[in-house]
């Protein structure tokens, strides 16, 4: 196809390269990096270029969709599973919704790739172990590819391929430092977190699969349009079942109640991963799924309500936990769960544009926050490193190299574990890491929903929608928004203000350009992202754009009451947090000032309301016990040993020995048998003499036989 033609009619033929581009990068790094001894920069560049190429393709596709006035286009690559009426294909779907997701995924993804080059190089856990660095970028590229399959698939099953694919990448990247815990001590913790994420996601996938089966047998297809068409005439019960099972999938992937538990643990992964996968892109897949299925969700308001309640409940619940966390990334993780709750609530209420809008802005500012947090953690690490060097002087300098191979970097020389992510160790970082501080501030304000940052516009749209339709949801979300501003304020005061509570914080160092520049881009987007969809007539750009795909789009005007309430509450929350944490900065070793007034409530927040423990008690431990019981007692000792070796074999032996030998036969058969044996023995003893071993005597007996037979023939 000629370029000019493509410019006029669209670049749809490029669609497969959404997936192939990152895969190419992956393969290059996988195959050639060892042969040609790629430097770290080279590996990172290849991966970033691959991801960037996907971004370019996304841009071209979005452009193509726009010049076609939002008309949906398909690109059929190959058939996948065709059996009878089951027809699954590798078909890419390009419409305004999917291209939006592509842009977010590849755009944020590329920035994070670039950031990761610097971050992974600086990460102290990374001991120049051969292949680790490359492995990270291979996983990242794989993730981009899987995510692209997810957002560009034209059927629920192709979406599911990406859906599980990103789950795999999540597993691999959470468990990237699989031999240690978050403090780099040798431990199973990180790999446990990875496993937890995968299995929890699988529970969600189970729901997705069941929804898929129902879809196929009652709606006859997996292809989006065909499903939507058939759904219109299908009985409500089926649609409710489908949508609710799908909700299980959404809860798994987008970390909603009750399956959100994996996401906080997922912070064990390197920070770029937390930003990319566990904040900006993968976890929003559930929101995308509901938006994509808008046409079936709108058919069943009762299911929609359940979705919205789940989202709102999660938003509030996670926000409370975020208040009680000390780890800088854990706070952000619960914040992510909470914000995902906002989005799910939005799409549940049918405010798809608002949900997507928040998804996009959240991708910007949460990625920004995570990456800045990563920068803070690295700064702390460097400070700590710096200290260790000073304390150890020269004699330690030599030993350091040797020890460098072992995994004890988290320890300082007293053997005490230093946690660079613990906010109680920080303080006053504003001075040592000014760039990071300002970037973090932008992210915080955007998340807290302060005018005119991106978060303000998107969150407000959700709240506005809720206030119009579901009052209870509106209040839950508003309360969650208040707490969001509060815990972000708490975090900022604890991290950047006051005095350093640890030597490391005092010696923290600013991060290199390769990390801060992508952050600045994200910061700019966090500031300006709101412009995508301003609540003024003629500025509903995103709404208009998504309107091509989504049947009904509300474009609400700005409601000053709602916006006013949320802004005032956010400011009040920030003020409260200043009152508690900023006015009197925390001292080293001091307990959280909230602990006293809130008492056991704060203990609950601190301990995540003991949900993990609950799951352990109710599901995991019983399952372990049950499987142990089944395996050891039922299968092995009972079925394998007892039934087979004792009952069956034993019965056989018993029958043959006791029954036959002792009772029936002792008298009759036995005696005869004995006699027979003895007789045979004596006869054979006699006959044995004939067998004297002399060939000639054998020959003689043959001759005798011949003579006798001839004689018989003659005289018969």
């Amino acid at each position, binding site marked *: 196809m000629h370029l000019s033609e493509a410019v006029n009619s669209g670049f749809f033929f490029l669609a497969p390269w959404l997936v192939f581009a990152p895969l190419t990068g992956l393969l290059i790094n996988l195959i050639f990096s060892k042969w040609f001894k790629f430097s770290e920069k080279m590996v990172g560049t290849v991966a970033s270029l691959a991801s960037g190429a996907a971004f370019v393709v996304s841009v071209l596709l979005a452009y193509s969709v726009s010049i076609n006035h939002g008309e949906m286009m398909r690109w059929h690559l190959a058939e996948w599973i065709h059996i009878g009426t089951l027809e699954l294909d590798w078909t890419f779907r390009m419409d305004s919704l999917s291209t939006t997701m592509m842009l977010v995924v590849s755009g944020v993804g590329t920035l994070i790739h670039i950031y990761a080059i610097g971050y992974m190089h600086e990460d102290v856990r990374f001991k120049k172990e051969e292949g680790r660095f490359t492995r990270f970028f291979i996983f990242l590229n794989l993730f981009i590819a899987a995510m692209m399959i997810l957002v560009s698939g034209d059927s629920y099953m192709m979406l599911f391929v990406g859906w599980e694919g990103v789950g795999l990448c999540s597993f691999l990247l959470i468990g990237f430092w699989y031999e240690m815990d978050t403090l780099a001590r040798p431990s199973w913790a990180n790999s446990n977190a990875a496993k937890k994420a995968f299995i929890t996601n699988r529970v969600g996938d189970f729901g997705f699969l069941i929804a898929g089966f129902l879809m196929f047998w009652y709606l006859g297809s997996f292809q989006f349009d065909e499903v939507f068409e058939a759904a219109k005439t299908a009985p409500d019960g089926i649609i409710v079942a489908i949508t609710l099972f799908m909700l299980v999938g959404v809860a798994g992937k987008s970390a909603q109640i009750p399956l959100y538990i994996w996401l906080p643990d997922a912070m064990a992964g390197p920070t770029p991963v937390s930003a990319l996968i566990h904040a900006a892109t993968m976890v929003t897949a559930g929101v995308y799924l509901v938006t994509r299925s808008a046409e079936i969700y709108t058919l069943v308001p009762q299911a929609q309500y359940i979705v919205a309640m789940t989202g709102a409940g999660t938003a509030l619940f996670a926000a409370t936990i975020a208040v009680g966390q000390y780890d800088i990334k854990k706070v952000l993780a619960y914040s992510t769960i909470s914000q995902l709750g906002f989005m799910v609530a939005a799409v549940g209420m049918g405010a798809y544009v608002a949900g997507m809008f928040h998804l996009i802005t959240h991708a910007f500012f949460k990625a920004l926050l995570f990456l800045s947090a990563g920068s803070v953690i690295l700064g702390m690490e460097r400070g700590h490193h710096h200290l260790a060097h000073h304390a150890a002087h020269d004699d330690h300098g030599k030993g350091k190299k040797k020890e460098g191979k072992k995994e004890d970097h988290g320890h300082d020389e007293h053997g005490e574990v230093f946690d660079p992510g613990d906010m109680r160790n920080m303080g006053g970082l504003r001075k040592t890491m000014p760039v990071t501080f300002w970037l973090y501030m932008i992210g915080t304000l955007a998340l807290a929903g302060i005018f005119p940052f991106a978060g303000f516009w998107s969150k407000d749209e959700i709240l506005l929608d809720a206030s119009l339709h579901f009052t209870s949801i509106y209040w839950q979300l508003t309360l969650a928004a208040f707490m969001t501003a509060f815990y972000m304020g708490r975090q900022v005061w604890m991290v950047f203000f006051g005095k350093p509570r640890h030597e490391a914080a005092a010696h923290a160092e600013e991060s290199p350009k390769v990390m801060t520049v992508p952050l600045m881009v994200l910061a700019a987007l966090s500031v300006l992202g709101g412009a995508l969809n301003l609540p003024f007539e003629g500025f509903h750009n995103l709404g208009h754009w998504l309107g091509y795909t989504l049947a009904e789009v509300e474009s609400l005007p700005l409601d000053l009451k709602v916006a006013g309430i949320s802004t005032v509450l956010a400011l009040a929350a920030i003020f409260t947090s200043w009152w508690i944490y900023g006015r009197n900065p925390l001292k080293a070793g001091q307990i959280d000032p909230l602990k006293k007034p809130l008492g056991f409530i704060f203990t609950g927040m601190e301990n995540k309301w003991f949900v993990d423990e609950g799951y352990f008690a109710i599901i995991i431990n019983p399952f372990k016990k049950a499987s142990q019981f089944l395996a050891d007692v039922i299968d092995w000792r009972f079925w394998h040993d007892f039934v087979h070796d004792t009952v069956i074999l034993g019965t056989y032996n018993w029958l043959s020995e006791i029954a036959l030998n002792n009772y029936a036969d002792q008298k009759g058969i036995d005696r005869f048998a004995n006699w027979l044996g003895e007789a045979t023995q004596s006869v054979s003893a006699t006959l044995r003499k004939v067998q004297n071993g002399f060939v*000639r005597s054998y020959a003689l007996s043959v001759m005798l036989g011949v003579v006798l037979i001839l004689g018989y023939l003659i005289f018969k």
Partner: protein
Amino acid sequence: MNSELIVFLVLSLVAVAAGLGMVFSRNAVYSALFLVLNFITVAVFYLLLGAPFIAMSQITVYAGAIMVLFLFVIMLLGAENLPPTKSLPWQKPLAYILAGILVVESLYLVFLQAQPDMVVTAPGASVNSMESLREMAMTMFNQFLLPFEVTSVLLLVAMVGAIVLTKREKAGQK
């Protein structure tokens, strides 16, 4: 009594004598030579019976190849005279007795069913020897093709077997 019968009687005497000589010679070399003699007389019988090809085979294969092989082995092992043993004292008398009975029995059988009018045809009288050879070949390669081929396999196996059995083990093994 025609000349043919005379030849037969003389030669059969020679054959029996050679056989006895083979059995009773102390020296294995003599035994072998007696056996060669026996074979040659039997070959003449074959000629008398109108089987020139078999006669030639008899001379070449038996009297030639096989007996040479025997002689070689005798040379190799030494034509020793084994010392008398007490191991099977009744073996010899019993053997004589049985042999006697067997001869009597077979003679009896032959004469019992004698058909004096059945006589062998003289050589060359009715059958051209080349012609008979051709016919025999036709029979062998049509009717008996498979046994013929199997025989070749048998010979191959025997050859391999003989080589394997007498192969010298390499030094170091055993």
